[in-house]
């Protein structure tokens, strides 16, 4: 379909600037989807120490670059053989602020994994979850400010998600309580009512939560109802 730009010459400065801003926001949504797709590829291959272009916003005051580098440098498996983390990105909800400088988003994901910690035969894992996060522009491109994986399920393939919950693989291993307070904080539990988090960003997310480092937008459903 060929586009018709008749009338573009008749737009005044204000109208034209508004149009530019709308186009910039739509382009931002596209670029952020690309950014998170790239992050998903690199999450899958798990090659620590490999030189890569930066996807994380490192200059923001809320970011501790040293802590991020330290986290990245820690191997959690003896060998990459048989390991994979395929967490596809579905159902994106992305809201860009009016200045087109920051964006909040949530994706849902039905993932599969292979996990071999000590060169043992890998475990096939089904892992459902979400990817919530905030993005800002840094060095002329969109970067991830915060937000990674939030687990819903992570079960050995044959066990199913009601009967098994694998913890996040770390060294040293997490206790169940530590895991519960980390990526498994809102994970499925057969004896609990599901908690509605993360909430996808609402259209007015930037009016209600103007600070990009503020993560409370994810947890609005967890607030105690106010007494009438």
């Amino acid at each position, binding site marked *: *379909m*060929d*586009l018709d*730009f008749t009338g*573009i*010459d008749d*737009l*005044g*400065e204000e109208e*034209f600037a508004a*149009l*530019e801003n709308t*186009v*910039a926001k*739509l*382009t931002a949504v*596209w670029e952020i*989807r*690309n950014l998170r*797709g*790239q992050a*998903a*590829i*690199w999450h*899958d*291959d*798990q*090659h620590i120490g*490999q*030189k*890569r*272009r930066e996807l994380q916003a490192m200059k923001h005051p809320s970011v501790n670059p040293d802590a991020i580098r330290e986290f990245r440098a820690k191997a959690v498996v003896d060998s*990459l*053989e*048989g*390991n*994979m983390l*395929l967490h*596809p*990105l*579905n159902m994106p909800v992305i809201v860009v602020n009016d200045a087109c400088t920051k964006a909040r988003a949530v994706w849902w994901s*039905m993932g*599969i994994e*292979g996990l*071999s910690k000590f060169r043992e*035969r*890998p*475990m*096939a894992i089904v892992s459902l979850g979400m990817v919530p996060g905030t993005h800002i522009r840094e060095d002329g491109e969109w970067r991830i400010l915060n937000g990674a994986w939030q687990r819903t399920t992570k079960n050995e*393939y*044959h066990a199913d998600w009601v009967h098994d919950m694998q913890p996040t693989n770390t060294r040293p291993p997490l206790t169940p309580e530590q895991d519960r307070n980390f990526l498994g904080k809102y994970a499925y539990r057969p004896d609990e009512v599901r908690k509605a988090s993360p909430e996808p960003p609402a259209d007015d997310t930037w009016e209600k939560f103007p600070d990009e480092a503020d993560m409370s937008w994810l947890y609005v459903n967890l607030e105690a109802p106010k007494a009438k």
Partner: protein
Amino acid sequence: MPSVSEERKTNLVSAVRRLQAYEEIQNNMGRLIAAFNFRQADKVLGHFALGRPDVWLEFADEGVFEGPDAVRQIVMETVGAPVKPGEMLDLQLNTPIIEVARDLQAAKGVWWAPGGGAIPQDDAPPKAIWYFGMVAVDFIFLDGAWKVWHMHWFRFIKCSYEKGWVEDTSMINRLNVPVHPLAKPTTYHNPYSPLSIRDGIPAAPRPYDTWADSGWMLERDKSR
């Protein structure tokens, strides 16, 4: 009142055209994969730039089918083969990474494609399978439409539903039968197995001005 500069108008028109391309490419890929799932060979072929002598399709470890005749033949032989009762393939695209060339004449895209399927068996119910892969595509803008110029399907897992991707690796590689006479050598095949190592292929395309080659699909330098 100062008028809007011509440069701003040009930039805006270009940005809108690129956004339009982004949507059209996603729709076309969705239609192509739907046709693939429904075994509609003619519709699949309708998405390829068959007017180009350098059109190609690479399929897992079956090789590269280059040129319109080779693409047409392999699609007709596979997608167009008679469908058996109980046969199913259901690929679903997600995780799109798309870059439209600034000259608006070409585009690059990568999708992940989890899927399920069913393979008919002799004297038994069909076998349920998982079938996941990734697809990398060069698109070319021809006669007002985005066409698949080069497509590489990367098989990731193909296993029985019952056993899963660790226990069953029997279907990740091609059988030991003669390669297709039109196939050129496979450029990359690294499906998941308990012994495989992931390496981030196909690579995500990066912003670009004008299409130069398809090397980006297998790019291992992740610093750029």
